[in-house]
């Protein structure tokens, strides 16, 4: 439950080593880099570095050429360096070399055409075109027509290169004298000619492949560097790359620059000027997957509390209560854990963890895959009970279950208030600490009412007297009401509300009513926890009834029913537990609005 401490790190170098420094920073995967305009201002005299990115154009041109000639580029690390003139001249050379391919561009060759061409390429295309007295042609001819070729008194020879469902691909050769006659015959047989390329593109591609890949890799690398200039601030002849690095990684980051003459300045994160400090959550392996839920809502601000651990514990407990089944929990745990280890999918991690609490509560409820009596002997020997520890389906337990759910909710609301008080003390927001509905006033108001009601029903002791009501209810309500002027007083500002007393009174009357109402609705919201315990048990009862009804097919129904309940109920309970986290808890203590720590490669 922590947020990683950050340092603001600035790497300075001269122009000559700037590109190396940028690539080192880029490849380090450690720096949350800041845009240069966040680092410079009128006082420090910094400037943005401008660069015309010609390499992007080069990359696109090379990509287009490769696409045209059907070559895939697998980018590797560039082995050589090239001047712009060299790159341009190489591109021109490629354009000239493959220009002949362009004339064929309007004809779209399908895979079968390519197979036929490939086969024909065994005879060199260049040699085919050099023939002076023999004409050679290629094309596809319908299967029906292929059968008819020999019906003619042919003045040509032909060879079958390939055939598919509807066509044969043939190459023919004839003397120049009979070209017209041959074409007439073939035309009458619906021959569709395919132009034979003047060069063997594949062969030429192989000649050029290595260089194309190398030049492309170089251009892409340069292009990346050009894009990184946005992060470089210029101070006279010094070029500075700034950003945030977790404290634990600062040394590792510094070491990356050992081979380059740069100066690395490490400052406190708070001294980063206009830059807002990014947040990197730091949790142990058990809680880590729950960062997903926190990220989905909003990343906490640097310096705030990280709610991940609290979310993890409460989510697991709420899910476990609502989805209490030892067998199904075990499946969730095993399945989730395997998937999490294989894919690192955080949701799978969450599933595996809630599986554990599901197993625990399943054991306490005595439920295994909907079999409600299997664990009775264990309960009897362990807890000394007559049947089982807690029979969910027993009607007499329903009220206990629902009251228990509300109690859990009340406790969670109180804990979230304490968290809110802690957070505001950290930020020295004394008005929020003392007078807000989620501060001390709210805690006393809500806590007193809860204790009062509890004592009334459990101990038959009424603690509601004019004095206690005055101190623990009316006084907190007055605090809610006058929160704004009282906060102003604490901050040493004037007592008058910003919107004036008239507006203030009108707005605050409704606000206080809304606060009172929200305490009731938030508490009642936790009834769903008890509701879903009953719902889960009820659904499994239906499955077990069906198993009994279906006789021999029972085991199949048992398996399908369990899968169905796991999927449906698991999804619903997961969503409901998340809803309680976001609406009932986060709304009381958590703001988020932080900036996530992202290294450059993941930003891109």
């Amino acid at each position, binding site marked *: 439950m922590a947020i990683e401490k950050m340092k603001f790190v600035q790497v300075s170098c001269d122009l000559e080593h700037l590109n190396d420094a940028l690539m080192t920073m880029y490849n380090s995967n450690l720096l949350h880099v800041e845009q240069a305009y966040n680092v410079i201002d009128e006082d420090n005299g910094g400037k943005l570095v401008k660069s015309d990115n010609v390499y992007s154009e080069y990359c696109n041109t090379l990509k287009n050429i490769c696409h045209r000639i059907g070559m895939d580029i697998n980018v590797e690390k560039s082995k050589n360096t090239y001047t712009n003139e060299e790159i341009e001249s190489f591109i021109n050379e490629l354009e000239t070399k493959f220009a002949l391919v362009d004339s064929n561009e309007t004809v779209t060759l399908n895979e079968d055409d390519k197979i036929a061409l490939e086969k024909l390429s065994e005879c060199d295309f260049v040699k085919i075109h050099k023939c002076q007295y023999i004409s050679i042609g290629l094309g596809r001819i319908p299967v029906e027509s292929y059968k008819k070729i020999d019906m003619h008194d042919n003045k040509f020879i032909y060879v079958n290169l390939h055939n598919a469902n509807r066509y044969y691909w043939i190459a023919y050769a004839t003397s120049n004298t009979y070209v017209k006659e041959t074409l007439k015959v073939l035309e009458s*047989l*619906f021959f569709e000619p395919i132009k034979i390329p003047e060069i063997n593109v594949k062969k030429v591609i192989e000649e050029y492949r290595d260089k194309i890949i190398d030049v492309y890799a170089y251009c892409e690398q340069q292009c990346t560097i050009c894009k990184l200039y946005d992060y470089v601030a210029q101070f006279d002849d010094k070029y500075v790359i700034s950003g945030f690095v977790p404290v634990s990684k600062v040394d590792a980051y510094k070491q990356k620059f050992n081979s380059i003459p740069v100066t690395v300045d490490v400052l406190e994160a708070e001294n980063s000027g206009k830059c807002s400090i990014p947040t990197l959550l730091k949790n142990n392996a058990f809680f880590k997957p729950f960062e997903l839920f926190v990220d989905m809502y909003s990343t906490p601000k640097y310096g705030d509390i990280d709610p991940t651990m609290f979310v993890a514990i409460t989510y697991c407990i709420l899910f476990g209560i609502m989805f209490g089944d030892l067998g199904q929990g075990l499946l969730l745990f095993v399945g989730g854990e395997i998937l999490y280890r294989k894919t690192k999918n955080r949701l799978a991690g969450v599933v595996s963890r809630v599986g554990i609490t599901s197993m625990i509560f399943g054991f306490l409820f005595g439920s295994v895959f909907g079999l409600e009596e299997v664990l009775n002997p264990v309960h009897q020997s362990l807890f000394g009970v007559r049947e089982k520890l807690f029979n969910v389906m027993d009607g007499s337990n329903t009220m206990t279950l629902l009251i228990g759910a509300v109690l859990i909710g009340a406790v969670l609301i109180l804990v979230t208030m304490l968290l809110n008080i802690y957070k505001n003390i950290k930020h020295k927001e004394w008005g929020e600490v003392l007078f807000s509905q989620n501060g001390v006033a709210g805690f006393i108001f809500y806590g007193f009412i809860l204790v009062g009601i509890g004592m009334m029903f459990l101990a038959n002791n009424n603690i509601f007297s004019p004095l206690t009501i005055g101190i623990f209810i009316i006084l907190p309500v007055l605090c809610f009401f006058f929160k704004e002027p009282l906060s102003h007083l604490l901050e040493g500002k004037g007592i008058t509300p910003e919107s004036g007393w008239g507006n203030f009174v009108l707005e605050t009357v409704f606000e206080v009513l809304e606060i009172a109402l929200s305490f009731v609705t938030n508490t009642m919201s936790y009834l769903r926890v008890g509701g879903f315990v009953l719902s889960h048990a009820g659904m499994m009862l239906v499955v077990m009834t069906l198993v009994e009804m279906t006789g021999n097919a029972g085991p199949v129904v048992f398996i399908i029913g369990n899968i169905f309940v796991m999927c449906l109920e698991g999804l619903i309970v997961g969503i409901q537990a998340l809803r309680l986290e976001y609406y009932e808890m986060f709304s009381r203590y958590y703001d988020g609005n932080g900036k996530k720590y992202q290294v450059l490669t993941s930003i891109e």
Partner: protein
Amino acid sequence: MTSMAANAMSAKAKAMLSNRLTANDYQVLLQKKSVSEVASFLKNNTYFKDVLDGINESAIHRGQLETLVRMDLYNRISRLLRYSDKKEEEFYRLVVSQSEISIIVDCIRSFHTNDKTIMISKMPTYIQGKISFNLKELSKADNFDELLAVLKHTDYYNIIKKYKTINMDEFDYVGLEHDLNRFHFEKVFDVVNRNYSGQAKKEILEVYLVEIELDNIAKIYRLKKYFNVGPNQIKSLIIPKYLYFSSREIDDIILNKKADDILNVLANSPYKNYLSNKNFMYIEYHTKSIFYNYNKHNISFSNNTDLVLMSYVFLSKIEIQNIVDIIEGIRYRVAPEKISRLLIY
């Protein structure tokens, strides 16, 4: 054929017919600008998708598209005949026989033109196994002797032998086609007489008699209007089979009516129920429209399975001709409204 198989074939034919091109499909096809677009539409939106599967529609040749569309009819008939017995197989042979006649006539024409490319390109090699002579040998025939050698074991031999000549410039193609058609219909009547009796025979014969009678009327109109041929010669070129017009009435038309009066005769005959309401374009359009509507009526109302099958074949042939007209119209850049007037649907 068992009654269950008969019902299955009849139901299948009706179901297959329900997939035929609609007026809307024809309108879409007429808007196409190239043969490729027509091929693409037929391949992706109609029941021709199976036969056009695998074609390269962007480069398909007009002739190939026509061939494939025609080939599809034989595929469909074969599918229907899976439910049939020997009797229906004989009808398949009759359909093939019409192709055989075209091949023989094309072959004789090639003696005249000294060019076999058209003949060979039109040869339906996809039904080679069903044809009564060897197509490859026929393609090599350069004169009547060689042709007769190929046809020696077939029924066509004696007909063609009569026309054997060296001087192709005065060859009587009209007479040859007439004799071959007459022979074809004789075979038709033979098959019907051998296989059917009673009402079924009457109904099936009627289909062919309608075809012959309408063909005779179109022929009379054309010979009178454009070739100014005398009554005796006209009589010799029609097939003397009669249904709604008696022999006397046909003679009266040949002797006393002008070409344009023939349309009125048709409009006042029992065929009036099947007449198309389009304005006159050319005589074959009207006779074919009548034949189309007549067959459509059969498919809708008849319980005679073989009649349904025959009507299905006739309607499919008209549909194929529509597609061929559209393809050729587009190829030769004829205005869509002009092509539209040729279509029968």
